[in-house]
């Protein structure tokens, strides 16, 4: 009961924000919390690059046609070590460490989902579309923005630290006019005051360098103040230690650790990616490795976030699913419908959302792929509506243009 009351209060607060109250104007915000977002919930989006085989991760072993499509090199179902979820689906053995979350109602999936991307099955266009959140492949690099950034645009008065893009790649999903922070764990920037002054001056002539250096200096300052950085001198020694930190294994865990540190402070939204899902060959090993990283990451977030985990939703999404049939080399090729994962104490867990299309010959998309029956964006939209209080019109018009999110069940507690 206590828990429910907390959530109601939170939702009330959020509705205030979505109606356009700035943090400063909200009666629920004290001046001290000005730097923070107008909500207390945490949203983490993980982009799974390479096309995760949703049919192997959340195996529809209750579908009579499924066994006929798999089973040569790709063994499925409980007999192959997968854990039953609901009598119809079973979870890949490499995600077994997440079964306690399933049991605790902190893990759910959406199946037979896809972006609106069809037929060309290109990773790169598929990922662009997934992160842009649009119905068509976005155009050139200039002027593109991502759906998480458009979500932030809908909430006025946010500080850049509200949202973090983490890692060494440039994440489209958080790009756009709303200010966000971009950083990678292990990065240092230390300059003498004179060097900083001179660099500032020469960067003024180039807006891209100017913006990047300003943000780098600001973030290093803030991260150092937050105590997550050692004081580093401007020399190769500092460089050396940051390089060492970056090249030892477990990069995904350092990303998770960095996310935890931020999310426990003023950050409310974090995005990063996990690669390695393009399992054309030897899928049973390759997918296991990628799933272990995903599972580690989620467990690290839960562990690190502690009490904040209860206010957190993690969405893991991929650009497309893979072929229903395994191919001739123990893997699967690029497909269409797939699965999405949701985890967190705020998630309505213990279920697989789906409008199952079946896997018989006539049920497959183009005779080869799982038929998508829901837009994967609807689940992200539903999560943001329920978690952050965003209204449906903003979600369907501004954040995911052209999306129809009707018919999507409740995804957040």
């Amino acid at each position, binding site marked *: 009961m206590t828990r429910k009351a907390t959530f109601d209060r939170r939702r009330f607060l959020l509705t205030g924000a979505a109606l356009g109250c700035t943090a400063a104007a909200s009666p629920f915000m004290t001046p001290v919390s000005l730097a923070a977002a107008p909500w207390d919930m945490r949203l983490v989006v993980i982009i799974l690059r390479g096309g995760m085989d949703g049919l192997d991760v959340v195996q529809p072993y209750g579908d009579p046609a499924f066994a006929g499509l798999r089973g040569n090199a790709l063994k499925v179902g409980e007999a192959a070590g997968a854990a039953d979820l609901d009598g119809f689906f079973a979870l890949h053995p490499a995600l077994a460490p997440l079964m306690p979350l399933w049991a605790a109602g902190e893990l759910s999936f959406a199946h037979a989902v896809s972006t609106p991307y069809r*037929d060309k099955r290109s990773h790169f266009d598929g990922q662009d579309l997934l992160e842009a959140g649009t119905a068509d492949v976005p155009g050139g690099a200039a002027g593109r923005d991502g759906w998480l950034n458009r979500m932030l645009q809908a909430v006025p008065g946010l500080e850049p630290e509200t949202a973090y893009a983490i890692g060494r790649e440039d994440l489209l999903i958080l790009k756009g006019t709303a200010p966000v922070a971009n950083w990678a764990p292990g990065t240092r920037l230390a300059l003498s005051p004179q060097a900083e002054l001179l660099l500032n001056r020469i960067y003024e002539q180039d807006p891209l360098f100017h913006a990047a250096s300003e943000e780098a200096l600001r*973030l290093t300052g803030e991260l150092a103040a937050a105590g997550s950085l050692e004081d580093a001198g401007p020399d190769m020694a500092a460089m050396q230690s940051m390089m060492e930190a970056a090249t030892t294994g477990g990069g995904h865990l350092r990303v998770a650790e960095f996310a935890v540190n931020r999310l426990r402070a003023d950050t409310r939204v974090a995005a990063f990616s996990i690669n390695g899902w393009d399992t054309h060959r030897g899928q049973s090993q390759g997918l296991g490795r990628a799933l272990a990283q995903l599972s580690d990451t989620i467990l690290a977030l839960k562990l690190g976030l502690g009490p904040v985990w209860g206010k957190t939703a993690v969405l893991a999404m991929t650009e497309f699913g893979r072929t229903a049939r395994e191919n001739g080399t123990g893997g699967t090729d690029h497909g269409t419908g797939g699965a999405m994962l949701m985890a967190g104490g705020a998630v309505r867990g213990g279920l697989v959302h789906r409008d199952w299309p079946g896997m018989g010959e006539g049920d497959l998309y183009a005779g080869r792929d799982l038929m998508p029956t829901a837009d994967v964006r609807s689940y992200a939209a539903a999560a943001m509506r329920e978690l952050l209080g965003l209204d449906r019109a903003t979600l369907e018009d501004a954040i995911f243009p052209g999306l129809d999110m009707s018919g999507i069940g409740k995804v957040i507690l």
Partner: protein
Amino acid sequence: MTLDPTLAAIRFGTGRSPRIPDPQGADAMLAALAGQDRMAAAYPIPAFTSLFPAIAEIKQVNDRRRAGTASKADLDRKSALRRELQARQWDLTRQTLARGLDTDDGLRERLTWFWADHFTVLGKSTDTRAGVSIFAEEAIRPHVAGRFSDMLRAVVKHPMMLLYLDQSASVGPNSAFARTRPARGLNENLAREVLELHTLGVGGSYGQDDVRELAELFAGLTGNAINGFSFNENRGEPGPETVLGRNYGRRKPKLEDVEQVLDDLAVHPDTARHIARKLAVHFVSDQPDAELVAALEAAFLETGGDLGAVTGTLLAHPSATRPRLQKAKQPTDFIVSSLRALGMTGQEMAEMDPKAFKRLVLRPLEMMGQPWQNPSGPDGWPEEAEAWITPQGLAVRITWAMGLQRHFGGDMPDPRAFVATALGDMASEQLVFAAGAAETRGDGVGIVLASPEFQRR
């Protein structure tokens, strides 16, 4: 407008050097490109076959291990071979980068980097990582001023590509081979990327059926790091196959049919458009002028994909000779041009202690977002300046540049002279001032290298 020598070195070469004069314009660059490949001779990279003995021996140990007959000596030997192959990857990396430091034919290096990225391969295991440099040497470098169709053929037949995009495991579903092993069949990875990335482009006029039929045509292509390339009729799919509306092959699978479809794809108008745009984007601007792209496309089509002619058109085009620097150097280009400007020789690079090389080059590359020969997918590295000049990426570039004093010690040049060495008349007044106003030589040099002028091209 003709190509200014300073701009030629920066935009189309590996940067300016205190030791080596700038190329004297477009004609000089093209003449050097048409001449001897002196850097390949000075810093040789061995043939792919040079890896075979070690990899074959590792496989024998693995086989014995599986059979339960491997001795302790076997396993020690395997570890030693692995270490040796790993060391070889770094040797070849130093050889590759040394060329950029010493060359007076920088266009050849830059074209090799560009085309090796266009045809990205990764070493999927420690054993084959040294093969990435070798792939570029064998399949890319000989063709950068030659015919695109020859490069495409060489790439698709190279074991590194066949291994990377899983072609070597693919077999025709109706092949003789599959008749006795019904679980084996097609893998469409390479066929898709040949259409999407290597030739027509994702906007090109192909569909899923073309991917599938091309994969069937490719089924006989096999290659590994023990025996090299071969066309295995047994694994080939009985034809004919239809790709983009044209039939290839007959019942009996043949390598000539694969070569035929590659030759057709290589000169397809969609390919011309795709390659033209990629070249313009890589060398000139993330948003290239439409006329530049059109000129490159026309040159490609008119010459049937003569890359020497297309490169000549690029260097002569007005939008390639404009002084405004629009591109951001990728980390490899940034590091090589920095070390070149500081006067490091190829010999010094080639002989650098592995630990120092890691500290000075490999780890910084990774932190700048470009782990050496390890992009996340077959589309290679991103082009847009925004992908590289991120807060985290720029922080690493600045820290690296400001820390070079540690490596070069007393050999650091006077920053006031260095700004001219590195940038000639491309340095802004503010930068010339800043180079002289820094507190130490190391800071002054670092500021020049961290400047927008130096990091752009």
